[in-house]
């Protein structure tokens, strides 16, 4: 695979980085990233994946744009209210970078749909807004061996870490409990911007195979006092998903359509 003269111009400012160069740009072009949710986090990471020249960007979201999304979900505008988020995202991302293959999936992320969503993906970027969906992403990450970059925000704070199956704890290790909070969470727009920017940088480094990743560390950001802290994490030996006594099935047969049962 080569890069064109147009691509050499578009990506010049990253091509001149010795850590990237032409070979790195080709790696980005060959990658396929799943962005699970194009809300506050996914808006930002989708823009940066397209801008960086990721070859294929699969965006999954079941929701339509609402006016109350627009303080933070910067992919979408006033004219998009009522439209599917994936359609709005498709248009913005194609406008930013027509060379990217954008694959919109306007579907709920569930055990029934996730294996098709992650098929052939290099990395999963978390843009979801609840633990239940994140646990679906986590199980698929473990099952298919795909790195999963978690991000979460609330108010003026956010968290991010990179899970690599077999090498690091998984999301279930961290969040074994889920009280199912469903009430709206207050969020100021720049906070998902910060967290999703870090997720995006992690994804780019992971694809390129460069630098140190946020593995075995949970990065906690407090935007009120402008601090970043890292919390060291080990694998949870009792984790039901990645621990030594984990359920090797991950997806229960009743959750899977017939075509997926062969994966178990």
């Amino acid at each position, binding site marked *: 695979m080569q890069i064109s003269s147009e691509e050499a111009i578009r990506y010049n400012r990253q091509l001149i980085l010795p850590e990237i160069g032409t070979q790195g740009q080709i790696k980005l072009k060959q990658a396929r990233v799943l962005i699970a*949710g194009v*809300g*506050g*986090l*996914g808006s930002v990471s989708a823009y940066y994946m397209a801008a960086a020249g990721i070859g294929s960007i699969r965006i999954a979201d079941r929701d339509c744009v609402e006016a109350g999304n627009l303080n933070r979900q910067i992919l979408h505008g006033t004219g998009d209210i009522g439209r599917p988020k994936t359609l709005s995202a498709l248009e913005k991302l194609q406008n930013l970078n027509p060379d990217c293959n954008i694959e919109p999936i306007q579907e709920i992320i569930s055990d029934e749909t996730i294996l098709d969503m992650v098929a052939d993906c290099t990395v999963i970027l*978390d*843009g*979801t*807004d*609840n*633990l239940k969906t*994140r646990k679906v992403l986590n199980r698929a990450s473990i099952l298919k061996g795909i790195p999963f970059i978690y*991000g*979460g*925000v*609330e108010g003026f*704070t*956010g*968290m991010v870490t990179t899970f690599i199956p077999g090498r690091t704890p998984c999301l279930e*290790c*961290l*969040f*074994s*409990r*889920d*009280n199912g*909070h469903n009430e709206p*969470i207050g*969020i100021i727009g720049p906070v*998902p911007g910060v967290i999703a920017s870090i997720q995006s940088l992690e994804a780019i480094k992971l694809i390129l195979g460069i630098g140190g990743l946020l593995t075995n560390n*949970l990065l*906690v950001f407090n935007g009120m006092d402008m601090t970043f802290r*890292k*919390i*060291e*994490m*080990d694998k*949870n030996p*009792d984790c039901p998903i990645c621990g030594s006594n984990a359920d090797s099935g991950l997806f229960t047969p009743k959750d899977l359509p017939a075509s997926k049962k062969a994966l178990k």
Partner: protein
Amino acid sequence: MNETMEIIVNGHKEIVPGNATLSFLIHHFKEYDGDLIVEHNGRFVYPQKYADVTVREGDAIEFINPNIGG
């Protein structure tokens, strides 16, 4: 737990009973969020260890509520 000790909880100095466990401190500071994350001296502690981990003078504890919004 007759003697007391000084520890740092969420960035603030606190006096607590000596040899307090994380389980004791969670109740002592009324951290009842079921999704609570506990950091002890910069390391993540899993819930099944809360009753076993004893805190010592000068230790730093952070009670953190997970960020699940997106």
